[in-house]
């Protein structure tokens, strides 16, 4: 079958998303989707298109044990309610016990078990991410920006208020080491927000050692130089 034909991809994606495709054809399309961005795009397009058809489906509250089981399967303790203190302590205790257990095992069997120590160490770290903490002229941390390494969303958290002058917008800039700054996006006017990125963080930030925020009259067009920065900070790789 010639999957390069857009009409064929569109038809297959439509039947896949609608649900009428038989099992074997579904498996074939899923393999195709994993290999072909065009097929994946076609499926996303039909998912978007047909999503409103789910709107009239009445919502149903799942039984409480459903969450408990999800929680357990993803590494939680499966209890529906817990105190925030317990929520903080559990990973710390788990990690401490894991380290103690690993040290014990490594001392007994030093050679073959050593890689487990590395795994424990790995589990205690955050996923591979780009993180920036931007400070003002007085060195007060004002903005936290983070994005997973291959993600296309930048999470923003304001640590202190940022007074944006009237009729202006706050723009986040990436300052690459080897070329001119480029605008990442306009900061939404809220304490917590997300920005959709034009590309993956890896592509955008791999050669960006610093970030900056400036006030601009409007969202900058490509090639425009930034106004003086009101916030700056390092952009670091969390891995």
């Amino acid at each position, binding site marked *: 079958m010639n999957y390069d034909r857009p009409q064929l991809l569109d*038809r297959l994606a*439509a*039947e896949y*998303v*609608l*649900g*009428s*495709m*038989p*099992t074997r054809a*579904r498996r074939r399309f899923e393999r195709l989707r994993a290999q072909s961005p065009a097929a994946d*795009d076609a499926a*996303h397009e039909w*998912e*978007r*298109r*047909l*999503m*409103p*058809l*789910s*709107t*009239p*489906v*009445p*919502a*149903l*509250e*799942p*039984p409480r*044990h*459903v*969450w408990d*089981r*999800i*929680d357990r*399967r*993803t590494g*939680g303790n499966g209890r529906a309610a817990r105190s925030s203190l317990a*929520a903080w302590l559990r990973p710390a205790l788990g990690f401490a016990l894991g380290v103690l257990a690993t040290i014990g095992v490594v001392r007994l069997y030093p050679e073959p078990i050593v890689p487990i120590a590395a795994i424990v160490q790995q589990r205690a770290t*955050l*996923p591979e*991410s780009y993180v920036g903490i931007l400070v003002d002229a007085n060195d007060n941390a004002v903005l936290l920006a*983070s*994005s*997973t390494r*291959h*993600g*296309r*969303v930048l*999470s923003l958290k304001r640590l202190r208020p940022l007074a944006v002058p009237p009729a202006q917008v706050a723009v986040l800039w990436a300052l690459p080491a080897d070329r001119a700054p480029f605008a990442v996006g306009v900061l939404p006017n809220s304490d*917590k*927000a*997300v920005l*959709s*990125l034009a590309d993956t963080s890896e592509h955008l930030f791999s050669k960006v050692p610093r970030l900056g925020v400036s006030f601009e009259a409007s969202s900058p067009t490509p090639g425009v130089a930034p106004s003086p920065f009101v916030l700056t900070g390092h952009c670091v790789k969390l891995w």
Partner: protein
Amino acid sequence: MADAAALQVLLSRVALGDRNAFRALYEATAPSLFGVAVRILNRRDRAEDVIQDAFVNVWQRAAGYSAAASRPMTWLTAIVRNRALDVLRSETLRAMETLHDAETGETDEPPDDRPDPLGLLEQASTALAVRDCMNEIQSTQRQCLALAYYHGLSHAEVAERLSAPIGSVKVWIRRGLERLKRCLDR
């Protein structure tokens, strides 16, 4: 349910391993998603398993979520629908095998008490203000689309339900989808 921006924030935190955000995401979206799964499977116990599998999948794959490609609820619904369709197909296969082995005409499948899927399609058409356009789709085509989308029936199952040749059902679905695309893209 939370709006798309709030769900995006939650998903980005889930990607960083934030369990509180994961719980909040579940509470905001699970009822809608459970409704979708029950609609397809007509079995609450199977739908519970689907929701479990789907959210475990979300926990593992949240870093791969692309806001540029899908809105959060579209992404989550697709995960749930695909899992529900897989379960439905495997259940149907098992039921057919059991039936064949036992050579009996009886099954322990619960009665189908779900509302008419065509009614849901009409509700969606009204809500989307595309009712006139949808009404131009031949009624048999609409019925095929509704059975496939809301009950997860394959071409062959739709053909059996409507007592129609499978070749005709394939053509009805294809033409119905083409028309649906024109209506929904307006």
